[in-house]
């Protein structure tokens, strides 16, 4: 947190959004799909960052919130025949409700126990997906049919399978969540969250109900992750159990650590970095994960606070 003028912070974020918009006209079509996927997953990372970066709670169960949005939206279309807007809202609501329940239970713990409890809940969620395979498609997953992934506005319609529409839809979601995150971080509530991260007992001693504030953070975080999952199902047309596996709980942690925890743009930078390192290195060798690992070690050594976190610490203290 810093004393940066709001104008400078908002200008930077609007600049990033404008850059992503401009890239859609410059980049080849292959990158449209990749960047749309990155933006949706960056939303997932932003949701994770809300809890990990700003409150200091390390969860290993956020895949369940992403999965709740993914399955909530996907199954609403596949099984219930809902339209895109309702399915999206349904997915988000599933994530929000799940986050509320998980928050009420998991926030009775802290530290390592919180990490384990969230991971266990996520495993239960993952196993439930496999158990109800008749509905969810189990480990095979299900394809969301292309004709159902169309947004109708009276006479006109938007086909979410169209690469340009998909890119722009992902950009709209990313932009909204980014600006909401910036507003939260700069708000009084955001400052209280940072105070909790710094010293929860002291925050309580100033008269703040830290449990309620943390619960709210879990719900907001889970809702954002669910929005990302719902968007993923609608834009990329696939719901699968792998998205609810523990790997998808660790990935946002990595993205946030790489980009910079408790920075608003760090999740995007971390997601872009990981995706492109994997994309580029996998073209040269099948042992690309080794190169990714070395890149991660170098980053941790030279940028211990993540890319943007280190930049903020060393040069640009005003970065939100």
């Amino acid at each position: 947190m810093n004393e940066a003028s709001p104008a400078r912070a908002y200008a930077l974020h609007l600049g990033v959004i404008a850059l992503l918009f401009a890239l859609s006209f410059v980049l080849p079509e292959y990158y449209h799909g990749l960047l749309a996927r990155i933006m949706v997953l960056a939303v997932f990372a932003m949701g994770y960052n809300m809890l990990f970066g700003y409150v200091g709670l390390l969860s290993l169960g956020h895949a369940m919130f992403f999965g709740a949005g993914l399955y909530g939206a996907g199954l609403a279309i596949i099984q219930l025949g809902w339209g895109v807007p309702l399915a999206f809202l349904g997915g988000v609501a599933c994530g929000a409700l799940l986050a509320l329940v998980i928050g009420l239970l998991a926030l009775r713990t802290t530290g390592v126990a919180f990490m384990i409890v969230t991971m266990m809940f996520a495993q239960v969620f993952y196993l439930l997906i496999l158990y109800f395979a008749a509905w969810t498609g189990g480990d095979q997953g299900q394809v969301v049919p292309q004709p159902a992934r169309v947004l109708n506005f009276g006479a006109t319609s938007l086909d979410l399978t169209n690469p340009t529409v998909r890119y722009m839809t992902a950009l709209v979601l990313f932009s909204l969540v980014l600006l909401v995150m910036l507003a939260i971080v700069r708000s009084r509530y955001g400052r209280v969250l940072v105070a909790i991260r710094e010293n929860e007992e002291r925050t309580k001693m100033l008269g703040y109900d830290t449990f309620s504030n943390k619960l709210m953070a879990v719900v907001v975080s889970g809702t954002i992750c669910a929005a990302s999952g719902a968007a993923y199902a609608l834009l990329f047309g696939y719901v699968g159990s792998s998205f609810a596996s523990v790997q998808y709980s660790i990935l946002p942690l990595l993205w946030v650590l790489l980009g910079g925890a408790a920075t608003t743009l760090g999740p995007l930078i971390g997601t872009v970095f990981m995706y492109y390192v994997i994309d580029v290195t996998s073209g040269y060798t099948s042992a690309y994960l080794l190169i990714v690992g070395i890149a991660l070690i170098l980053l941790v050594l030279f940028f211990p606070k993540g890319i943007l976190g280190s930049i903020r610490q060393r040069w640009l203290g005003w970065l939100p």
Partner: protein
Amino acid sequence: MIETGKAEAKKTDALRIAGLDCFYGEVQVLYGLDLVLYKGEVLCLFGRNGAGKTTTLKAIMGLVPSSAGSIKLAGQELTGLPAHEVPKAGVAYVPQGRRLFAEMTVAENIEIGLMARGKGKAVRENVLDLFPLLRQRLKQRSGTLSGGEQQMLAMARALCLEPQVLLLDEPTEGLMPSMIAKIRETVSKLREMHVSTILVEQRVDAVLSVADRVSFIENGRNRETVDVEELRADPSAVRRYVGVG
């Protein structure tokens, strides 16, 4: 408890503790502790390490649960309140070791204090008037302040709550003499502002210079409470309970 302080009957209670028992797990730390803080006075808790001074402050704040007894703030029962409700009732606590929000600036630390009870600019100015040094450091990260400045900021943040009762746990610990003098000066000013203060202190000179009364805590009990004038005249109690002086 032996109350030898003068004119007890004429004074109004700011905080009254009666028969307080507290445990850390299975271990009892406070044994039927009785303590009275009068409005506008500085009461010093004095005693050896492990006597129960800090536990008393934590019990008042609801950080250590009590199994028996009562803690009343101007008649309002505090025992059983969630810890975050105690500051709202009017008690502020500056713990040992300051515990600032190190990543935040001085201004942000103060703002967090102000926000807690919806206090505005006027309170901020009053608090900064008490600690003029902090005005020059508003944009500095609090973790980079000196020990004395950190103590001032911790007190300033607590005073943003405009408390009726202020609890200070060893505020001069590890500070250089000039800073100790400033902290003492501030405590004296707070008395003039009618803030009732409980001060945990290990330094005899500090106790004698700022306190109105002194309670000697030993083995989780308040053994004796005396006026500081009496203590100056006859410091034998200090020798008796702490082994110095």
